[in-house]
């Protein structure tokens, strides 16, 4: 049994997922599972039991908003905290918004790995 925090990352870009997974797992704190399709997220979450979801905002089958709605409508999974990733807003743009949109933590894909890890830890602490 591992005491690492489990992160389920859903992003259609496998190279981005690979980089984030490597960076987060290198810290020794996280275990990361990746999925490329938003629609596969629910099933993956039931199997993996993540402590946190890392969701890309823009994906071909359904976007981060759609995936969030799926999780929030599922009694078993609705409490899982979420951090969103976006490639459409610059790091400065997210800094100017204190890393939040609509009350959710959002990290720019341009942000440094440390910034993402810090945001995840902060969100896990609640």
């Amino acid at each position, binding site marked *: 049994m591992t005491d690492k925090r489990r992160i389920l990352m859903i992003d259609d870009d496998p190279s981005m997922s690979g980089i984030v997974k490597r960076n987060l797992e290198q810290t020794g704190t996280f275990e990361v599972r990746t999925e490329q399709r938003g629609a596969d997220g629910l099933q993956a979450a039931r199997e993996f039991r993540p402590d946190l979801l890392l969701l890309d*905002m*823009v*994906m*071909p*089958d*359904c*976007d*981060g*908003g*759609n995936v*969030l*709605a799926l999780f929030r409508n599922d009694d078993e999974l609705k409490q899982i905290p979420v951090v*969103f990733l*976006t*490639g*459409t*807003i*610059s790091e*400065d*743009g997210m800094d*100017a*918004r204190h890393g939040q*949109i*609509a009350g*959710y933590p*959002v990290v720019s894909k341009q942000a440094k790995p440390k910034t993402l890890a810090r945001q995840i830890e902060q969100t896990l602490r609640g």
Partner: protein
Amino acid sequence: MISSFRSAKPGLNKFTSRPHIDRTTGCAGNVILKFRHSLERGLREEFPGPQGELLATAVSSLHRHAFDGQQQRRLRDMDGAATLYTLLTGTADAATMGLIRSAMVSSALLADMDAVLQWAQAGLTRCTQLDGKWLATAPEWEWVLANRGYYIELVQDLARFLNSK
């Protein structure tokens, strides 16, 4: 009151009888509107299929071309944040699609290939989830996804042309 409205000539401010002047261009407002409509119509006629529609709908965003890169990026981030807000709160509607279009034009002006791709994908995903009017825009988003380099060139050329004096 009604007679004062009737007596006002098109393009004239009804209270002062002076033409409404557009602050950005210094031209009379009704003239600007006619130019814009003519240009949009012409672009739709001249460029076949999705290209013409994309260029025509980009015209209203292209006044931003006059801004420098930093301002342009700030505006794009504002559109982006407003879009994400509607997606995360489940309130995406026609205005969201307008924001996505606008952010895609801004990204093209910044020659940001990745962001153009992301916005086109966002437009394509969401257009199928709104009413039938937006479903009709699917070929435009698909065209950008398949031709993003050319799309960026076209938008930048149009912006240069509109900003030339």
